[in-house]
C-alpha cells in the first residue's frame, strides 16, 4: 500500500505537534526532548526527530502526518521527509521576532517540494500578537509571487487545522468534491 503523507513544518513553538495531535486518529508519537539550546527560551521541550500521527481513511488507507523538527540544525531530514508527500502545512508563530523571516526561510527551504505540490500557511498565537495581520502575510507572499491560503489558526482547535488542510487539498485540485 502506498505511503501518503502530509508534512507539517515551521519554527520552534509554532504548534506543529499540537496541530498533528488535533487531527490524528491515534495519539501522536512525539519525540520531544528537553531543550538545551536557543529553543529553551521559547518552550521547555522541542521536537528533535519528528512528530508522527495518522489519519485513518475509509477503506483502510492511512494518511501519515509528519512534523518536521523545529530546529534548523535538523534540516537535513526535511528532504527525506517530504519525499512522496501530498503537500506542506507551514505553521508560523506570530509572537516571534520576525515571522516574515521565518516564512521566507521555510518557503525557500521547501521550494522544490512546494513547486511539485502546494503549501497552506497557518499563523498561530494571533490572540497574543495580532500584528502582523493576515493581510500583511499576503502582501509579503505576493511579493514572492505566491498566493497560498493563509489562515489564522489555533493549533488546538481541530476545525482550524482541518480547514487549513482542506485548503491545501483544494489548492491541489479545486474540483475535488465535498
Amino acid at each position, binding site marked *: 500500500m502506498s505511503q501518503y503523507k502530509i508534512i507539517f513544518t515551521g519554527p520552534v513553538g509554532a504548534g506543529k505537534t499540537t496541530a498533528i495531535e488535533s487531527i490524528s486518529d491515534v495519539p501522536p508519537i512525539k519525540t520531544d526532548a528537553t531543550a538545551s539550546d536557543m529553543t529553551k527560551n521559547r518552550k521547555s521541550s522541542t521536537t528533535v526527530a519528528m512528530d508522527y500521527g495518522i*489519519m485513518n481513511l475509509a477503506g483502510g488507507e492511512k494518511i501519515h502526518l509528519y512534523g518536521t523538527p523545529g530546529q534548523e540544525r535538523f534540516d537535513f531530514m526535511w528532504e527525506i521527509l517530504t519525499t512522496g508527500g501530498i503537500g506542506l502545512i507551514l505553521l508560523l508563530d506570530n509572537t516571534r521576532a520576525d515571522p516574515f523571516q521565518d516564512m521566507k526561510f521555510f518557503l525557500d527551504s521547501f521550494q522544490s517540494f512546494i513547486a511539485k505540490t502546494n503549501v497552506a500557511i497557518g499563523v498561530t498565537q494571533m490572540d497574543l500578537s495580532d500584528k502582523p495581520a493576515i493581510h500583511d502575510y499576503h502582501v509579503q507572499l505576493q511579493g514572492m509571487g505566491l498566493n497560498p491560503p493563509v489562515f489564522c489558526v489555533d493549533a488546538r482547535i481541530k476545525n482550524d487545522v482541518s480547514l487549513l488542510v482542506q485548503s491545501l487539498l483544494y489548492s491541489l485540485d479545486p474540483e475535488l468534491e465535498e
Partner: protein
Amino acid sequence: MNDKRKSPLRVALYGMDGRTYKMMVMYLQGPCKGMAAVVEEIDAEVDIIDADFVNVEALLEQKQAQNSTRPVIVLSLQELELDNVLHVKKPVKTADMLDALMKAEAMLVEKQKPSEDVRINKKLFINTDEQKKTSKHQTAMHLDEGNFNAFIGSIPGLDVNDPKQFPNAFYNPKEYFQGYFQSACLIAQTKKQVLYLNSGWKSLIIFPHNHEIWLDADDKQLRAFAGLPINSLSGSGMSLTPASAQTLSVKQELSKFHNMDAFLWKLAVWTSKGRYPIALDITKPVFLKHWPNFTRLIVTPHALRIAALLIAGPRTLPDIAETLKIKPQYVFAFISAAHALGLIKQAKRQADEIIQPPVIKNIERQGLLTRIISKLRGQKS
C-alpha cells in the same frame, strides 16, 4: 471650586487697551484670588471679551470658524442676546466674575469627559482581554448544503439558481444595512476615530484601530435586520457620531466584540440571500485577490473550492458554478461576502480577459484527496 483646581484658569483677553488689559490682569490676581491668569491666546482655555470695544459677534464667528470650543465670557454695559456665552454685566462685580469663571471651568470639565472616554477606548483596544472576546476568536462555522437555505433565507419570487433569472439576481448593498456599515467603517478608518453608528436599531460601535466592532445584538437579530431594505425603515435616520458615553457600557461586554472582516462577511452573506452584488457584471470574469481567512469566517457551501478555483484564474460567476457543478446561489453568496471585503475584483484589464483559466489536472490521487476531505469534514471540533 477653587480648591479643586490646582492651577488657575488660563484666560485670553480681547477688546481691551493696554491699560484695561493690565487692570484685568491685576483684578484676576487680586479680587478674584488668582482663580484665573491671563495668558497668550494660543495657551488659553477661556476667552474674555470686552464687547463694548470690539464687534463681539464677528469675533465669535471667527472663533467658530477656527473650531474653537473654549468657553467665552463677554463683558458689556448692556444685556446681550448671544448664545453659548457667559455674560458679565459692567461694572464688573467680583461675585459675578467669579461665578462666570466657575461656570467656564465647569464647562471645561464637561468637555474633557469625551477625552476620558477616548482614553478608555484606547485602553480597550490596547489592553482588553482578548480571550474574553469570544465572538472575535470564534472558529469558523461550516455550512453544508443542507442547512444553507435556512441559514441565509430567500427572496420571494426569485429563483437565483435559474439562469434565466440571473439578470435579476443581484442586490445593491447600499440599500441595506451592509452599505451603511461599510461606509461607516471607511469613515472611521479614514478619521482613525471610534464612531457610533446610529441606525435606529441596535448600538454599533466601530473601533478602527484594532479592526473591531461592537454590536449589541445576536446573530438572529442581525440576520433579520440585514435582509431588510433600509430606505423602507429608518432611511435618513442613519448617522455617525464620535463614540463617547456609549463606550462606557462596552467595557462590561467583551463578548459582543467582533472582528470587522468576520462581521462584514457574515452581514454580506445574510444581505445577499444568495444574490450577487450589483457592482459585478456576471458575464465578465472576476478574480480573487487572495484566500479569505476562512478559519474566522462563515464557510458557505463549496467556499473553499470556489476560492481555490478563482485563485487559479479569473472566471465568470456562471462558469464557476458550471465547473464545480454546484448551484449558482453558493457562488453568489461567496462572491457577495468576498466582494464586501474587497477580495473580489472584476477582471477589467486586457490581460485578465485573455488569460484563460489553467486546465485543472485530474491528478491520479483525486480519489484519495476526496477521501481525506471527507474524513476532515466528518471530524467535529
